[in-house]
């Protein structure tokens, strides 16, 4: 009986063992990909377009094969009318030419809804809707504490007051703090540079890590003066002490654009590592994103008291 059982098991194993091939792919489906982020501060709006592709392998990063989806026309509609995009080529840093569509006539207005429509030559069309956020109206609170360095508890309070008109959460915000400084250029003159100030410093076993701001849904942020001082001290040690000013910028992000950025940078889900990070898109019939951004900035001279304290 043992022999029969063993024979039966081996036969079963041999029969089932024949099929061990695996491909993670299913049938390829070409998807149009479009990117358009309306930016009020730019002289023209750029529509990037591509199509998904099917490389011979399965490893992302080994292939880059963006295809032309075959666009027939693209336009944006709002209460102010319809504005079309036209073909052009942009030169990339490596000298290659990137085909895009641009519109110089489109001037995004805050608090306004826009609809993007892209017609493809194969008869399909993709579309998306984006609402340009309101003016952030950035204010700097607690400036006094900024100028009077207090080792104990001083904080700079930065606030954007843009969300008051819209039900929460309609959008995201992205606060960034920069230090502008200059260096003497080798051939004379000055090179003006800027460096972003971290919002948080994290120590683990004596090792210091700077953590920078990320898109968020908060309407304000706090930047500890201690972090700014620490950061400036590092610049002093490198000899970059010719400061010009401190600039704070807040970007008010359209909600789908905000979601796209968050998904791109990973979920705010620290207790598990997802095997499958999904794509986020608001493009009906395709991939990509149709979003909008409105920025506001405040500049101020760098506080002399802090510099003196450091020196």
């Amino acid at each position, binding site marked *: 009986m043992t022999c029969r059982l063993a024979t039966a098991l081996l036969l079963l194993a*041999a029969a089932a063992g024949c099929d061990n091939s695996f491909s993670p792919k299913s049938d390829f489906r070409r998807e149009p990909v479009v990117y358009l982020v309306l930016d009020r501060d730019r002289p023209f709006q750029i529509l990037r377009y591509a199509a998904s592709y099917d490389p011979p392998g399965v490893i992302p990063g080994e292939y880059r094969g963006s295809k032309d989806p075959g666009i027939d026309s693209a336009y944006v509609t709002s209460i102010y009318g319809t504005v079309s995009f036209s073909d052009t080529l942009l030169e990339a840093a490596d000298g290659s030419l990137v085909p895009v569509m641009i519109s110089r006539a489109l001037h995004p207005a805050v608090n306004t809804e826009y609809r993007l429509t892209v017609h493809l030559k194969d008869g399909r069309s993709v579309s998306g809707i984006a609402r340009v956020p309101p003016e952030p109206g950035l204010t700097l609170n607690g400036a006094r504490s900024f100028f009077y360095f207090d080792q104990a508890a001083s904080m700079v309070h930065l606030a954007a007051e843009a969300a008051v008109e819209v039900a929460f959460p309609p959008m995201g915000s992205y606060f960034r703090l920069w230090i502008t400084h200059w260096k003497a250029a080798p051939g004379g003159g000055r090179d003006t540079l800027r460096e972003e100030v971290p919002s948080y410093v994290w120590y683990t076993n004596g090792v210091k890590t700077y953590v920078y701001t990320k898109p968020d849904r908060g309407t304000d942020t706090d930047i500890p003066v201690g972090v700014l001082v620490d950061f400036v001290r590092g610049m002093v040690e490198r000899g970059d002490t010719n400061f010009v000013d401190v600039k704070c910028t807040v970007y008010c992000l359209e909600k789908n654009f905000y979601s796209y950025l968050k998904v791109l940078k990973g979920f705010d889900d620290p207790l598990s590592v997802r095997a499958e990070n999904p794509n986020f898109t608001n493009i009906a019939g395709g991939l990509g994103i149709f979003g909008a951004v409105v920025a506001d900035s405040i500049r101020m001279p760098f506080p002399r008291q802090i510099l003196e304290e450091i020196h």
Partner: protein
Amino acid sequence: MLTRRILFFIAAAALCRGPLSAQETGSIKGFVADSLTGERLPLVNVVLVGKPVGAATDVNGFYFLSNVPAGRVKVRASLIGYRPVEQEISLRARQLATLNFRLAPTEVSIEGVTTTAERRMRYDTDVSTQPIGAAEIEIVPAAVEADLFRTISILPGVVSTSDVTSQFYVRGGGGDQNLIVLDGMTIYNPFHALGLFSIFDADAIKEAEVLKGGFPAEWGNRLSSVISIHTKEGNKNRFSGKLSASVLSAKALLEGPTPWEGSWMVAARKSYFDGILQRFVRQPTPFDFYDVIARANVDNGEDGRISFHTLISDDRISQKSPIEPDYTWKNRAYGVSWFQVIQNRYVAEVSFSSSSFSGSLDPKQNQDMTPRLSEISDLYFNGQVSYFTDAGDSYGAGLMFRLPAYHYLFFNSAGYEREERSRSTETGLWFKYKVKQFAPFAFEAGLRSDFTALLSPLIDDAFEPRLSLSYAFSPSVSAKLSYSRVHQRTITITNEDDVVALFETWIPVPRELPAEEADQYIVGVDGDLTFLPGLNFNIQSYYKNYKRLLDYNRDKIDQYDPDFAFGTGKSYGGELFLEYKHSAVYGWISYSLGWTERTIGNLVYPPRYDRRHNLNLVAGYKLGMGWDLNLRWEYGSGLPFSQIIGFYDRLGLGGIFDGGGYGTEPGTPYTVLGPKNQGRLPAYHRLDVSLSKTIPLAGRIRMIVEASAINVYDRRNMFYYNRTTGERVDMLPFLPTANVRIEF
């Protein structure tokens, strides 16, 4: 409405008296114990010879026979692995007599005694309860270590998704829907070594009950299964023990009598070599663990016992590199239980325990990781009493409190600390009535109530009706039907999509949200095949409706989004279990056919553990001269995964904020996935073999040498596909292992 109907049903049955008169019958109760060790034996069939009257012993070795005709009767006690014993007793009408048995083990049955398995009578109305004893654990060839959970995973209706984890999924339920109880203590994370095997040393286990559905009223708080594990009581007659060494660990089990009337048992295990683990997880794994299970019993005459229980386990992964994180996780459980037969008809059981689990991650100098901590601890009280009538019926009632405390800490992606401490209360007040006086019909009706929910707006969570019916076509074959509703208020936030989850974080369902809820319907037939002595069969079909499931919010973008999303689900299927025990041959065949579906919002998908077909063949054969041969072959159809339908160059759009724009940004190739989990991995199958030899050394001392081979024909079973690297990661290759054991 259903609850009211069942309450009415219980009341009507309780008031209705049966046709049998107690005037011509009496009852017999008693205990059955092992003659060598004095340990009480569960699952022993105690029957009247030549009469359709019988019962089986519970985990305390206690039985109660009702409806025994007055006069001189012969009672037979039998259990596979033991010589059957028959005793005669004279019984007067309405007498309750005591008759204890001591069974002698027949370890070398091939050399003379032929023992055929008999139908286990304890589960006469329990539909989906599967007992697992030491023999069932040992028969499965060990993957490094013999393990209870490996045996559970080859039962019908149970799915395991990999060789690398002992996590299992019962009838379409999630991994956190299994209640693991050791001697009455809840164990929250019962895994060693990244889930490779459980923290329960197989040598210390006397019996485990696996309830896959049709839960009696005493069980609750988990939607899918209950695994109730009972440790060995210890040898009451002499000091004895086992010393073992495998390629992974060394362990010892010692047991003996106490100076007072009672016994003790200690089982300890310690790892000493990580080379084998390294083959499993495919990276250097400086892994270290130990576990201790201990128990002491104080007997209160024949009818009572107080037991003290302990479980301690520690795991640690300590990396030498300062940028590789360290992990630790530990379980602590302490409990005391009291069992007492009162006035011969009442059986009271009271237990009090404390259990805790904590896991932590120390990133050291790794700047991409942050410290994490997950803790849960509880205080648990359970009291229950059963009453047996002369008509063969029994009543049961009980009360339980569980007070879990939760604590978790982590740093979110923005670097800010999030810490939360919370407490919850789980209560259960239950009553059940088991009716056997209307043979061939039998039923058990029960109602369980979380009475804290009665005081809240969530009154729908308060009641859980339970009902089981059986009809015996013959003394050896019966049909069964069951319905049960269960709620669950403690869950994990582990994402089922994670291939390997290092962290099992338990949290309470927020008070303002309703509990998870599932209804399960089961129909089945089980019994013996009279034309082939020793062959039992069990055929079941189930339908499980998850009316509420709490899932970690799949669309969570940041901390302002809700943490949880409610979903629903359903699972259904059929199971076949054939078990053969005869003389020197022991084995079983289990086959499951199942479908599982989850719905969250508009997304409908099969979860990662939705396995359509699952077949297990297990066989053990005593070859004689101390040689034992064990085989196991498993086949599982492919598990779901999401297929790639293309690639595209995804833009980061960071230039918008840095002044450069995105007009010429090159983008990063990224996969486009098709509908969730609509693809299937290749089928899984594997053959394991073990061969052991028992060598008598001197007196009672003997040595057992065992050689095992995992995945004998080196099948490349796929574990998962790494989309980032394009690598196919397989499970265990051909792997020979060995262990040696000395028993005295």
